[in-house]
């Protein structure tokens, strides 16, 4: 799922920071008025007001450059949103240091506000940049303390709030300095760890979401294609029946009634094969038993013998099987064999032969089905295992086929952790090789 805005996270972060800063400008003015008017602390009203104004101007600059870089996407690296955020944070640190200078320096509790920038940097920027920002912040605060301590710059004390002149108290300075340094780096370390983890999770989540979206799209297209195929059959049936209803010619009526009937049969077999495929896909666990692959091959050949004989095709069986038994689901393996051998018969010329070879190699059973048929164009050999795909050169041979056979075969073989490959030459013939791992060969 995408967020409603079209911004990237860094752009969004930059804009968020800008929004916060408008509040900061108001906050500085209010705090100054509050400290001066109500708490009666003699703060430097003019410099503090000027600084609030500077912050306002800087925020306007940040806002417009960020908008410019989001909308125009300039090639210049300076305008990258990430650099804008860095600019915002560093200028904030400078302004904060100046504000502190005019309001008690290290004695002002607002010194803790440096931490905010470290956290923001850790969330929005890379871990490296976050540590750099923390170091810059500590350097600013350190320099201010150093300059005030040695009276290189004046110290504006918060009289009435803090009268102890901590800014020249070495024990206080070393103690709080140590605490600031360790706290800062620990905060950066923790925030970076959390935000890195979070970023990883977000990435995993978006990746999963887009993978799902892609899957959903494929599924929808698949459903659309099936709908199209089914509707095409229905359209042909209905149109043929329209002729039966409208025509007065008995011969035409009969011709189109037969056509409609044949097409309905085709639709039925299409739906049946579709159901078979879907059922197979839904079943994750199939019953595996020991069975004789030799017997299964024999059975399938026997079943197909009449079809082969009709075309004058001879089925040769070459059996060099040493292990007779295979572990698997007998019915589905026979279904796959039936598909492969009947395809071989279907696409072979009359008076030719189809060869079925069974052999063993190490821990696998090898089944080869070889024909001298039309073959499959080279660029289509990868596609023939896709659902409902039919090679372009066979469309006219077998109009009734739905094209789901090889896809079903592949699924069955893969359920048995086996492989199926094809080697084919146009008008010379095809060889389908099935390799099934033998878990237990007796």
């Amino acid at each position, binding site marked *: 799922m995408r967020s409603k805005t079209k911004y990237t996270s860094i752009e969004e972060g930059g804009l968020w920071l800008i929004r916060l800063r408008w509040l900061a400008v108001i906050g500085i003015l209010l705090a100054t008025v509050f400290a001066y008017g109500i708490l009666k602390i003699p703060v430097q009203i003019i410099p503090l007001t000027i600084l609030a104004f500077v912050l306002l101007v800087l925020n306007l600059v940040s806002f417009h450059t960020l908008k410019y870089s989001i909308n125009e996407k300039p090639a210049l690296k300076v305008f990258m949103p990430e650099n804008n955020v860095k600019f915002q944070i560093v200028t904030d640190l400078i302004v904060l240091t100046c504000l502190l200078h005019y309001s008690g320096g290290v004695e002002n509790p607002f010194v803790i506000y440096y931490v905010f920038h470290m956290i923001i940097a850790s969330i929005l920027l890379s871990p490296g940049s976050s540590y750099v920002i923390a170091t810059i912040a500590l350097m600013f605060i350190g320099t201010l303390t150093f300059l005030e301590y040695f009276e290189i710059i004046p110290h504006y004390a918060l009289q009435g709030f803090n009268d102890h002149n901590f800014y020249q108290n070495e024990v206080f300075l070393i103690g709080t300095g140590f605490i600031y340094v360790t706290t800062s780096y620990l905060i950066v370390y923790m925030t970076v760890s959390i935000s890195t983890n979070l970023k990883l999770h977000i990435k995993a989540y978006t990746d999963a979401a887009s993978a799902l979206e892609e899957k959903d799209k494929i599924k929808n*297209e698949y459903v*659309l*294609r099936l*709908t*199209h*195929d089914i*509707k*095409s059959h*229905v*359209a*042909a*049936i*209905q*149109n*043929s029946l*329209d*002729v039966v209803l*409208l*025509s007065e010619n008995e011969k*035409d009526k009969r011709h*189109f009634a037969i*056509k409609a009937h044949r*097409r309905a049969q085709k639709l039925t077999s299409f739906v049946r094969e579709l159901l078979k495929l879907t059922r197979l896909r839904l079943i994750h666990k199939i019953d595996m038993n020991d069975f004789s692959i030799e017997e299964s091959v024999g059975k399938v050949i026997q079943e197909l013998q009449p079809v082969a004989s009709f075309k004058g095709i001879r089925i040769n069986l070459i059996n060099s099987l040493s292990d007779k038994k295979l572990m698997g689901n007998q019915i589905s393996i026979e279904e796959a064999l039936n598909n492969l051998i009947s395809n071989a018969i279907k696409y072979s010329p009359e008076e030719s032969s189809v060869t079925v070879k069974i052999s063993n190699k190490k821990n696998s059973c090898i089944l080869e089905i070889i024909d001298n048929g039309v073959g499959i164009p080279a660029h289509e050999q990868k596609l023939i295992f896709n659902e409902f795909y039919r090679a*372009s050169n066979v469309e006219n041979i077998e*109009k009734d086929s739905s094209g789901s056979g090889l896809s079903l075969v592949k699924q069955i073989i893969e359920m048995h952790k086996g492989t199926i490959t094809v080697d084919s030459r146009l008008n010379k013939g095809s060889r389908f090789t099935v390799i099934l791992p033998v878990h237990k060969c007796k």
Partner: protein
Amino acid sequence: MNEKPKILIVEDDIDLVESTRKILEMKGYEICVALDPDIAWERLKKFSPDLIILDVMFGPREESLGFEFARKIKHDKQTAGIPIIMLSAINAKEKYFNFSPATDGDFLPVDCFLDKPLDPDELYSKIQELIKLKSSN
């Protein structure tokens, strides 16, 4: 009009072609058939139909061969005026042609979409309407 109006049917489903042909012949049209767009172009030039019934016809990469053919017809000066009725089994207008009324405007190269299965009366009235429109132009 003494001469029979002529219709070219371009469709790859032979059953549908035969039945549609029969229905339209009974209505008094002269029909020419092409099972794929390659042959259809030759037939179109030779037969010079008054109307074309064209199936969406998906190619191997799910592209619509019918739609490409329609573009070709509308880009050729000689054939651009022939009305086209496009047949589809799914409402493929937006999906497969990336057609959007906002950007394509009037450019849709077919004059009418009909959903399969066809209703003979609807088909007949659309054909009449389009042929009348063509002859009045």
